[in-house]
């Protein structure tokens, strides 16, 4: 009573070579872009406060690295705390939503509100209530990360195959067993969809928050705060350095979530095996 063997995932040398080629090509395009940029500035005599040369940006990253790293870390911590808090709270709210269609109907409009009111519109209120600084920025990040987590987790919790529920009932499963062994596990892939979306906007949210509610003490603040500061001082080269740091932060968040998703899902979930590029 042997059957066909286990299917094996396809991969191997061909895939690796292909990926390497793609990597080399994209690095070449990037280098060409930098070269063109440098040439345009040298040929066109563009003043450095309008557009600094890539070399100058590299220099300023090197010169002011401690300050840059500090800003990076402040924003990274704020965005992480806001994101993690939104995951915890979002899953909690989703659990409430998953209890009945009635609670969903009653409460869902409020998450819609969360999603549709522009965050910059309520930022002044937040500053008024909690004061400028890290607290306000974390709260802003938390608020804009919340809706995708709630929506996706709820979807995962309620979209359980009816027969699986029946299976659990046939074994006289308790409500707790259905929740922890079935619904929550079933919701993890959708939770990750939510986290992926929220991780992207967490960085944007933290930086935007810092533009308005950056710091409680002058000269010390995250990337958004420093961006405002550098632009007011016409330190365009440092502004570029900050933009590079912001992009790096966004990438880091993306890859950390990407890795976690792979780590938790790759063994059993189809989508984690062939991730699509967004």
């Amino acid at each position, binding site marked *: 009573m042997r*059957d066909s063997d286990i299917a094996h995932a396809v991969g191997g040398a061909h895939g690796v070579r292909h990926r390497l080629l793609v990597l080399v090509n994209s690095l070449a395009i990037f280098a060409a872009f930098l070269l063109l940029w440098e040439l345009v500035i040298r040929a066109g005599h563009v003043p450095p406060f309008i557009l600094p040369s890539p070399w100058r940006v590299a220099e300023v990253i090197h010169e002011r690295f401690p300050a840059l790293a500090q800003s990076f870390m402040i924003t990274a911590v704020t965005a992480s705390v806001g994101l993690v808090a939104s995951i915890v709270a979002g899953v909690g709210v989703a659990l409430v939503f998953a209890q009945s269609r009635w609670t969903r109907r009653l409460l869902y409009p409020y998450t819609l509100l969360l999603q549709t009111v522009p965050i910059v519109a309520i930022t002044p209120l937040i500053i008024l209530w909690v004061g400028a600084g890290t607290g306000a920025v974390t709260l802003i990040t938390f608020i804009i990360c919340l809706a995708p987590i709630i929506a996706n987790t709820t979807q995962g919790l309620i979209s359980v195959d009816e027969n699986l529920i029946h*299976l659990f009932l046939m*074994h006289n499963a308790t409500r707790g067993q259905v929740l922890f062994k079935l619904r929550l596990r079933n919701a993890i892939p959708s939770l990750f969809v939510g986290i992926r979306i929220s991780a992207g906007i967490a960085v944007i949210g933290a930086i935007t928050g810092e533009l308005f509610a950056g710091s409680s003490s002058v000269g010390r603040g995250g990337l958004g705060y420093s961006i405002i500061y550098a632009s007011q001082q016409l330190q365009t080269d440092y502004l570029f350095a900050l933009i590079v740091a912001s992009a790096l932060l966004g990438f880091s968040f993306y890859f950390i979530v990407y890795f976690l998703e792979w780590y938790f899902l790759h063994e059993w979930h189809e989508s984690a095996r062939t991730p699509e590029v967004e």
Partner: protein
Amino acid sequence: MSAQPRRAQDFAVPQIEFAGVAKKYDRLILDGLNFSVTKGDFVSILGPSGCGKSTVLKLISGLTPANSGTILVDGMTPKNARETMSFIFQDPTLLPWRTVRANAGLGLELERVPREKRDEKVDALLELVGLSHVARAYPRQLSGGMKMRLSIARALATDPRLLLMDEPFAALDEMTRDRMNEELLRLRDEQKWTVVFVTHSVAEAVFLSTRIIVLSANPGRIHADIPVMLPAARAADLRTTPEFEQCVTAISRTLWEARTA
């Protein structure tokens, strides 16, 4: 009462009893259902689509309540009798995040059987259904036939006395299906469960059953209740005998009558 002599099993305790059972969703699905299933019976339910075959299984398992009439399983209400039964669905209904072994042990785990006891039992069952070599694999790595065997192993883990099977092999190709049928009979000879089996296939029903109930549709009523007069010990070659052919023809005719009734 007929004057015919009664067979010994007529006196056996019925495991399932339906008395005047009706079920309504938005329309009347089943009406006036009276039948009983004796211990050790293998009863197949055949009928045109939409006659409520699957609903009969849901009623026996208490997954849906009857609107009128009484259903007794082992003398108890269906919900109270759940411990004695296992349900095998049309889809394998496996948990994709669990390994083959963890899937097979799900029922025992939900019934809070301690881990060591569970593992021992599950390993023996995986051996029985020929899945030991993939115990650590995940469901997505299995073929359709293997998934179904896993589903059966999981159902058997809780030592059911009554198996409810809802077109379990409908999604398999015919050769795999035939082989699964033979394996099912072999397991039944060892374990002596009572089985209620819903299917679309007359040949499958004849091959497996000791008795076939044919339902008519709109609403579902019992059109015929036919004992299968084939030898108890059955092997693959039964399918090529004239007796088997005759039986399939007779049931097919009854099914056709039920459709036009």
